[in-house]
């Protein structure tokens, strides 16, 4: 497929690099599209109201009316899982997106400028990197209370250091290329060089990493929900559902397994796409 705009062409080439990327892209698109549709349309497009009780028999197994069965309160598990999709997708995209931005700016500046600024920024990065996610999350929950937004704060504070490191490494590599020298020789100022020349050139490997990272955020966030720090019942969230339903593992296994499976699929989808993108970027670099 040939497109006129060379940049779009490049993106398409990356996304169709191999079977892993294509599959990943397909799954990711489906997930994201679902999240957007469900977020906009709300409860109306779901088979059942996710928090309405007794829409079916209690603890019914998977059937045609209830694809993933029902829980003890007679709520439709499938609708609950669907309804929770925008939650995880939104949180992971925001956390990764902001971390990418912050990390890229800090790391690129450190890598390009070097010297004392580099040392200072990297040591700050190291300090933040040392904070454990869980401890911070619980602390924030204690201080500010539980909830989606508060958990997102916790993650936003500590998620960006790996991006800064990655950005710095890439910026170091890019800064020694001749086109940077050429820009300097033309009198282009440092800020413009950083924004226009360094940042765009470090973006592609960072996006590949970020894609895989979305899966990681989903897992951590699901973990926090599992611990009850995030969304409060009756609203559904995948991790919280695994926690709430775990006692039914033997008696009604579909209850904990389906949410866990969905978490797994989402993580695998983003990982595949990210992995494939990383391979594609490597190949482009060598070839």
């Amino acid at each position, binding site marked *: 497929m040939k497109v006129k705009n060379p940049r779009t062409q490049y993106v398409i080439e990356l996304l169709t690099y191999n079977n892993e990327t294509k599959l990943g892209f397909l799954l990711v698109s489906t997930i994201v599209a679902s999240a957007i549709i469900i977020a906009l349309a709300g409860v109306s497009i779901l088979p059942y109201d996710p928090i309405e009780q007794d829409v079916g028999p209690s603890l019914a197994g998977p059937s045609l009316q209830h694809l993933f069965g029902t829980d003890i309160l007679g709520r439709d598990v499938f609708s609950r899982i669907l309804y929770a999709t925008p939650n995880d997708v939104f949180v992971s995209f925001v956390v990764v997106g902001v971390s990418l931005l912050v990390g890229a700016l800090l790391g690129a500046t450190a890598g390009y400028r070097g010297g004392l600024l580099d040392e200072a920024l990297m040591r700050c990065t190291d300090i933040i990197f040392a904070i454990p996610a869980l401890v911070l999350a619980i602390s924030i929950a204690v201080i500010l209370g539980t909830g989606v937004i508060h958990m997102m704060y916790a993650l936003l504070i500590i998620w960006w250091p790996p991006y800064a490191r990655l950005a710095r490494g890439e910026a170091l590599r890019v800064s020694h*290329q001749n086109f940077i020298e050429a*820009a300097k020789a*033309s009198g282009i100022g440092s800020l413009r060089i950083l924004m226009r020349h360094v940042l765009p050139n470090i973006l592609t490997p960072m996006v590949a990493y970020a894609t895989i990272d979305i899966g990681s955020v989903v897992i951590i966030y699901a973990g926090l929900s599992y611990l009850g720090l995030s969304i409060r019942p009756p609203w559904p969230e995948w991790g919280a559902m695994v926690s709430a339903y775990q006692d039914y593992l033997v008696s009604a296994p579909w209850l904990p397994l389906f949410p866990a499976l969905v978490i797994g699929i989402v993580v695998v989808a983003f990982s595949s796409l990210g992995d494939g993108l990383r391979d594609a970027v490597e190949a482009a670099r060598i070839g």
Partner: protein
Amino acid sequence: MRATSTSEEQPLLQVEDLAVYFDIGGSFSVSLLTRRIAYVKAVDGVSVDVGVGETVAVVGESGCGKSTLARAVLGLVESKRGSIRIQGRDKATLRHSKDRFKIIQMVFQDPDSSLDPTMKVKDTVSEPLVGLSSMNKNDREKIAIEVLDAVGLDSKFLDRLPRQLSGGQKQRVNIARAIVTEPSLVILDEPTSALDASVQAQILNLLLDLQEKYSLSYLIITHNISVAEYLSDRTYVMYAGKVVEHGPTKAVIKEPRHPYTIALIASAPVPDPKERNLLKVEIVGEVPSVINPPPGCRFHPRCPYAEQKCSSQEPALEPIGPERFAACYFIDKIARTTGKAFA
């Protein structure tokens, strides 16, 4: 374009006793502990002139300092001592004038890494105009299109990314970018080394055409003798951070006087199987380290004519003919037995 005598006119570029040293101290903490300051003396006392309309070549092998010299002239590296005058004005005073980017520009080595992979051709070429004057985007683009046309790239190349260009096309974009600000002097760092033979020929001809069309002066950095011979009016030969010989190109290349120049010319492969100069050449040793260069004349460990004096005191550049200079004590003796030891 023939160079006029530079005695009446002021030379466009005047480099005098330039020295560029790089600190290789290592990391901050290590140098605190060891207190050892070692320098790479990349350029160690070099003087070069380029007159208006002239093409000057600086020839030498890896580590001789020619690329560093180019970067110092352009202001990309700091010099330890020496002066650089452009159109009579000192580099320091020029630093604050916006003009400096207009006067000198550079075509960088390696066309692949010289272009931003994320920028379209037209943007790359128009970028140097950004800081220059208050032109708006459209005006800049118009000039870029003109210049691209002058280097032989038509409008279909405007929106292309570097990955869609061949080596020769990339080099043309490089050249276009260098001349878009209408500079007086263009420094070319190994302009054709990464290119195939047929492309090289096209680029060399292009450079000549552009020189005439835009009244450019060239300073060409190269290790390729035949390129230097083809393009330049005068040639400087560098070795281990110093100039060992310079003069009119024809003279320097056809009748080299300094032992290193003789060795260099003798080693350049000539495409004639009947004249197998390469197989007769006898050169020993390697290019020396520029951290600890040999004492005295830097070439003496490899020089078949070296005597005691050479290892203790460095010879200065002395006139050895009309507009010719060389740094060697035994020029006359060598001239009498020219090249016998090397070829």
